[in-house]
């Protein structure tokens, strides 16, 4: 187990390092000169331009810029935004609760609904219930989160007019109200895929030899599913859930926009438009960091569930 954890941690660090380089390069592939955005098209002297370049370290080589950026990250400083002239860290921190809330709440909703849904459709395989639920799943998987969001806003305003669900918030209750609907919209696309994977994997386990043995031991259907098949069928579900987290994080950017929530999404899009290197770098790095961390934790979870993985990687 120890070796497994160490291996995974090493992989994790290497991936983060590579990703940071990729992000840094990609941001700079944009042909626009950030200085022109910073001065906002005003008449400027060569001296002012040089000053601005010096202020934002744009006069240094790319390699030096990269080192400054990485050094800053380790000190919790993502640099200064070109357009807001503010510290990126504090900008992110102010908007983080919305994005984190969205990701967490939508994944909880997705998990809580999709695993039981997968089990039910597996048990009721080829019945009208299964067919009906499969059609709904297909529709959900085909709907991008922003479309679901727009439809949801429509439905909410039609059926409960006057309820405020967008804009800023001042207390926890309001916060939950703000993030609930976008989370549901985000969760939908996740439920569809996760429940299908749960279903397939559960059917496979139900047809396995050990389940037949469990039946021959006199265990009821319920016991067979809950005590034997569930744990076995969750392994592929964890895999798919991990990759879906990435989709989810990207989805928050869109959904925040539709629900006009002050999350990371809106400043990220602004940042891309105005060539604001520190903002884009900082936020993308943070999202990638979260995504990779989740994947790593899920890898660890495999080992907790499956003794064979623990053994293979040495004690």
């Amino acid at each position, binding site marked *: 187990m120890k070796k497994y954890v160490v291996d995974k941690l090493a992989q994790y660090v290497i991936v983060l390092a590579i990703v940071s380089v990729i992000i840094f390069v990609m941001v700079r592939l944009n042909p626009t000169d950030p200085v022109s955005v910073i001065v906002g098209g005003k008449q400027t002297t060569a001296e002012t331009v040089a000053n601005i370049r010096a202020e934002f370290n744009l006069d240094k080589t790319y390699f030096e810029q990269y080192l400054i950026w990485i050094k800053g990250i380790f000190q919790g400083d993502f640099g200064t935004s070109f357009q807001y002239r503010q510290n990126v860290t504090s900008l992110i921190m102010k908007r983080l609760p919305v994005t984190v809330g969205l990701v967490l709440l939508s994944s909880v909703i997705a998990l809580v609904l999709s695993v039981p849904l997968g089990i039910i459709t597996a048990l009721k395989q080829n019945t009208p219930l299964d067919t009906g639920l499969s059609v709904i799943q297909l529709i959900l998987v085909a709907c991008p989160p922003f479309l679901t969001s727009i439809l949801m806003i429509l439905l909410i305003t039609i059926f409960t007019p006057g309820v405020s669900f967008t804009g800023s918030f001042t207390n926890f209750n309001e916060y939950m109200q703000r993030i609930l609907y976008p989370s549901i919209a985000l969760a939908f696309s996740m439920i569809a895929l996760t429940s299908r994977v749960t279903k397939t994997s559960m059917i496979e386990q139900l047809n*396995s*030899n*050990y389940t*037949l*043995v*469990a*039946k*021959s*031991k*006199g*265990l*009821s259907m319920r016991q067979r599913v809950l*005590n*034997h098949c569930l*744990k*076995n069928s969750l392994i592929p579900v964890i895999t798919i859930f991990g990759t879906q987290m990435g989709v989810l994080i990207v989805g928050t950017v869109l959904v925040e926009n539709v629900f006009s929530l002050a999350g990371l999404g809106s400043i990220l899009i602004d940042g891309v438009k105005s060539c604001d290197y520190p903002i884009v770098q900082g936020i993308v790095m943070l999202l990638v960091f979260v995504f990779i961390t989740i994947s790593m934790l899920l890898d660890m979870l495999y080992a907790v*569930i*499956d*003794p*064979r993985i623990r*053994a293979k990687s040495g004690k």
Partner: protein
Amino acid sequence: MSELINIKNLKVNLMSPRGIVHAVRDINLEIAQGQIHGLVGESGCGKSMTAKSIMRLHDEKKMLYGGEIIYEGNTDILTMKEKELEQIRGKDISMIFQDPMTTLNPLLRIGKQLDEMILQHEKVSKAEAKERSLKLLEKVGIFPAEQRYKQYPFELSGGMLQRVSIAMAIACNPKLLIADESTTALDVTVQAQILRLIKELQEQNGMSVLVITHNFGVIAEICDVVSVMYAEVIVEHGPVGEIFHNPKHPYTMDLIQSIPKSGERGGKLVTIPGTPPDLRRKIVGCAYAERCKYATDACRESAPQLESCGENHEFACKHKFA
């Protein structure tokens, strides 16, 4: 001796997209109390199907049963409700399966899977269940029991896992133990050990055992009585000695002929030409006629019935071999 299980005209039909498959055509089988009963036949002849029917283990959305399986002279297993079946499975009738590598849940400890069987059928505490599981492990020759109890299936060898399966199957002192090709996946020396273990346990508990195999060697080793199956019907049955030394049905004769003999080297292995009939087709006459060297027109016209020839010995063939 009275019958524990009496199978009367059992039919099992499997609904497949390409039509009904007759997995078991018409089986009559009596399993006496305290006996080891062998059921032998080639692959796909319906042996396992028959065995699984005794515990109603088939997926009944796709299966249709016909006939009766009378348990202890009064209840028909085929008409039991699922709840009643759950009481019988594991407690009165239990089963050991073919591939020990896949019959245990890979994610649960050996001990937990053993305890589960005991806790399911008996009102005992977890500590008592553990106590009994450890004794069972020792009984089937797994040492050190305490350590194995905590291990996962992938940490044990095939032979050991099959021992664990046996321990699990006998945990609640069943009246009937069904061993469905239980030694097929194991190598020969382990096979012999497992067979000896089953025989020993049978002698201790006085339970009945139904041994399903395609291997006449296994039958010779432990069985008291044997039934020979061909194309989903029983063609001959009788005491093991009788069947070996005085077989009446040509199929039984051919099967015994084809057992490789030790000491004979270089000779060609005797085989039975041809293949068993298609299970989807309706069979007219004797199913073995196509492959039988004694077949006549009479054989192809109508099916022979089981006839008695001596004590407990019956066979279904129109020819009477002395």
